[in-house]
């Protein structure tokens, strides 16, 4: 086990991406993710990689598209308004069956919004963002250590399923320092990519990376094939942490930064002898419906806690399928809920006020 160091989430994630074999980073400055790009600009030249500050987020994501089309691991990072700009490219990457890693260190929106941490891009990340029938793998770290661990998973899963993967973090996780154990340095064996546009050297037919299918029958088939893969992912890749849910009558559901607060609240009410637990989705797409459904067998109610006006709560409701009530508590615009506020909500629900 390597020695733990204190690192900002943004920087730890960047280092972990390099350890995961990423040698091409294309970015554009935006708060609160800037340290990630700055770290890459310092490290990439030392590991023979490319750091390129693009002219816009639009250009950056398309540089990722190009590098990824060439068959190598490429990544970009941004924060909410920047991710809106990247949405076009993300749709094309998905439509071209390319892997790629996109980091969103979320801040408050809509519009220019604010720069404090938020979770109001859940819909954008999990329900589309760009146009067309497609999904992103969406992973939600809740600690600096998870910022590190999930980024290599994002690359691996993206390569495995040939689709873009997003790390949905937020300003709190990006800016904070926590003790973190970085992966051991070493050459990582990366998967072969026979589909890549890397030059055929006269040894095979030409590869075409493309998202255009003018025949609707062909396009529909292409999408149906992709959805078969998506179903496989929904079957095999759901991840969630279940905390004190075994006997829980009330189950909180929260991811990322808000899950840390929800956990504090759960600990407090457990001390008061109340049966409350927490499901922390680690994959937001695929959403961990299995964990929710399992908990729904015993729970009398759910409470989604988010730093938004209520976005993930929709998926909780879909998973619960009206078996028990699903409540919501959230702060937004860069406000972070306190454990006390969540505690108040829990008491209201358990007291039957709602």
């Amino acid at each position, binding site marked *: 086990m390597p020695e733990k160091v204190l690192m900002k989430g943004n920087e730890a994630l960047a280092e972990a991406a390099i350890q995961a074999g990423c040698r*091409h980073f*294309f970015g554009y400055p935006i708060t609160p993710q800037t340290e990630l790009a700055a770290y890459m600009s310092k490290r990439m030249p030392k590991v023979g990689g*490319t750091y*390129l500050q*693009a*002219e*816009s987020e*639009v*250009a*950056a994501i*398309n*540089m*990722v*598209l*190009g*590098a*990824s*089309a*060439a*068959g*190598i691991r*490429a990544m970009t990072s941004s924060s909410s308004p920047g991710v809106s700009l990247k949405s*076009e*490219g993300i749709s*094309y990457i998905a439509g*071209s069956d390319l892997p790629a890693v996109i980091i969103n260190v979320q801040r408050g929106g809509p519009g220019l919004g604010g720069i404090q941490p938020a979770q109001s891009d859940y819909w954008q990340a999990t329900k589309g963002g760009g146009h067309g029938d497609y999904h992103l793998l969406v992973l939600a770290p809740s600690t600096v250590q998870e910022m590190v661990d999930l980024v290599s998973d994002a690359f691996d899963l993206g390569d495995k399923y040939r689709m873009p993967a997003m790390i949905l973090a937020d300003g709190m996780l990006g800016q904070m320092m926590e003790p973190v154990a970085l992966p051991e340095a070493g050459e990582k064996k990366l998967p072969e990519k026979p589909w*890549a*546009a*890397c*030059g*055929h*050297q*006269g*040894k095979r037919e*030409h*590869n*075409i*990376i*493309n*998202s*255009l299918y003018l025949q609707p029958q062909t396009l529909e088939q292409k999408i149906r094939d992709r959805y078969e893969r998506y179903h496989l992912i929904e079957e095999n890749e759901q991840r969630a942490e279940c905390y004190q849910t075994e006997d829980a009558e009330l189950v909180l559901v929260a991811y990322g930064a808000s899950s840390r607060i929800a956990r504090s609240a759960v600990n407090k009410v457990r001390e008061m002898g109340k049966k409350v637990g927490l499901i922390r989705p680690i994959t937001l797409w695929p959403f961990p419906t299995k964990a929710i459904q399992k908990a729904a067998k015993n729970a009398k109610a759910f409470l989604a806690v988010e730093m938004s006006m209520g976005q993930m709560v929709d998926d909780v409701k879909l998973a619960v399928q009206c078996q028990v009530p699903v409540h919501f508590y959230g702060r937004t615009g860069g406000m972070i809920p306190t454990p006390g506020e969540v505690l108040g909500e829990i008491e209201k629900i358990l007291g039957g006020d709602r």
Partner: protein
Amino acid sequence: MGIVFQKPKSITDVPMHYCPGCTHGIIHRLVAEAIDELGIEGRTVGVASVGCSVMSYDYFSCDMVQAPHGRAPAVATGLKRAIPENVVFTYQGDGDLAAIGTAETVHAATRGENITVIFVNNAIYGMTGGQMAPTSLPGQVTQTTPYGRDVKTAGYPVRVCEMLATLDGVALAQRVTVDNVRHIAEAKKAIKKAFENQIEGRGYSIVEVLSTCPTNWGLAPTEALEWLRSNMMPYYPLGVYKDVTKEGAV
């Protein structure tokens, strides 16, 4: 009997969809000939843009990537940075390069991105049915300038080579056309040079090819060539606007 004429090796057997009289076919051929002559097909990756040439990924036999509208230079940047030994070219129309992709174009050029850009300027949006392009001429009638392009409201055309020639990162900025045999031979030379520059690591090279769109101009192919000569060439003079191999000539 000896073969006296054949399709370049770098062109596939897929039938092209271009309209009769359109000069895309000639320009495709020139690009393919250059690739063949330089013997680089196996390490060349082309980037198709959005517009009439969108399906050029089916026509070139090297590896191909289809880029979002205007983003071909960014996609090419990613491809080239990923594998610098490869030869990367974009094939872009005027709407793609000089309207929606202006930022990507200017910045790839000023970075001196070591890529080759084939810019087909026919002063109109062809694929969507003949709307005003950034390079449509003053007074030119299009679907969206039915009374002629009024520069007071629609602004002036963009002269791409002249603009990019001011940037330090540009190795070659040359405007050619393909209306006659002599011009085609010149265009071929320019395109080949744009590829050679990349192989030599000289930076961003752009060859602007004045091209026709008989269908959307509403002219017969020969009339279209005449229209190109009498309207486009005076506004967009042929010539070398920058060539780092002949510095001092500018």
